[in-house]
């Protein structure tokens, strides 16, 4: 029990440190999806930075936010939101989709 407590304390401390470090130089952006359409189909990302993208799902159904080139896959339940950490590459136009509806619900990250 002692061990487990110590273990979780270490993990929490690590996460605390990381969140503090993240908060310093990360850029916060947001995006939402409603009626299976992204609020913006072209999201500009600053090259080389860390972006914390909050994706709000305003539909009752869950989505799986996915960007294959960025190796991002995150399930977001209906009527809720999630934060996605993106390490922005140097350049590019990168597709992001709601995976189960990838032909219809999509947009692009524009790195500049």
């Amino acid at each position, binding site marked *: 029990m002692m061990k487990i407590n110590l273990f979780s304390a270490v993990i929490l401390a*690590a996460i605390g440190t990381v969140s503090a*470090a993240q908060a310093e130089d990360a850029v916060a952006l947001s995006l939402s999806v409603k009626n299976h359409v992204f609020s913006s189909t072209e999201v500009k990302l600053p090259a080389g930075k860390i972006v914390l993208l909050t994706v709000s799902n305003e539909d009752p*159904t*869950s989505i799986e936010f996915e960007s*294959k080139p960025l*190796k991002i896959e995150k*399930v*977001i339940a209906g009527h*809720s939101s*999630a934060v996605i950490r993106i390490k922005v590459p140097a350049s590019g136009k990168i597709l992001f989709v709601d995976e189960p509806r990838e032909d219809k619900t999509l947009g692009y990250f524009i790195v500049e």
Partner: protein
Amino acid sequence: MIAALIIVFREMIEAGLIVGIVMAVTRGVPGRGRWIVGGLCGGLAGAVLIAAFTDVISNALSGMGQEVFNAAVLGFAVIMLAWHNIWMARHGRDMAQELKGVGEEVRDGHRSLLALAVVVGVAVLREGAEVVLFLYGVMIQGGETVTSMVIGSLAGVALGGGVSTLTYLGLAKIPPRLLFSVTTGLITFLAAGMAAQSTLFLEHAGLVSVLDAQAWDTSAILSDTSLTGRVLHTLIGYNDGPTILQVCVYLVVLGGIFTLTRLLRPAPRAAQLKAATA
């Protein structure tokens, strides 16, 4: 119906392969059916729970809960697989030659089965939670009756079971003499691939950021989201664009398990047993 079928089957591929491998690995071990079914049921129950709490998990740990959870679950599966392999190296040959002793050996055997049952459970849990969420989505979206959705899902599960059966039958074709080495190798690659995947989740959570440059990009040749790519991703951890850290972790786990399995194999004893049974 088709929507449900595709969703279920896509998520079932990984679990299907893993169940097939575990069945082959535990061939001839008494009581394995109960353990595997137990793993499946535990995984399913867990999947429903996780689906229900997606929101809570997701928003824990400053929004990185899902990543940390996935990383932890995969890390746990890696430990179970490594432990199983090392244990099998010590005792597997006796079991394969049906020299199973009563008492301690069997109890140990059950502990090893438990490790594999956990791996099955974890595979079902991770993929299953997504299935539950999306089926719920298909349902509340309307357009599909519950009956057609249930039929579609069951067909998807049946196809996933087909993947398990094919994997098992394929492995069963291997001569018993070689089966042990083959399954040990398979489990080692499976574990290395899971470790690399776990690393990716930690990177996404922002918990590790060393060596995070992309090592290669082979998405144009074989995308890891294609069917072949997915199968290879599960079996050997194929990734069309891993980070350098992921490659390092993969190699360390692969090398580590191989080395430990070799070091701990009691060669003289195995030879003695062979002589005794000859």
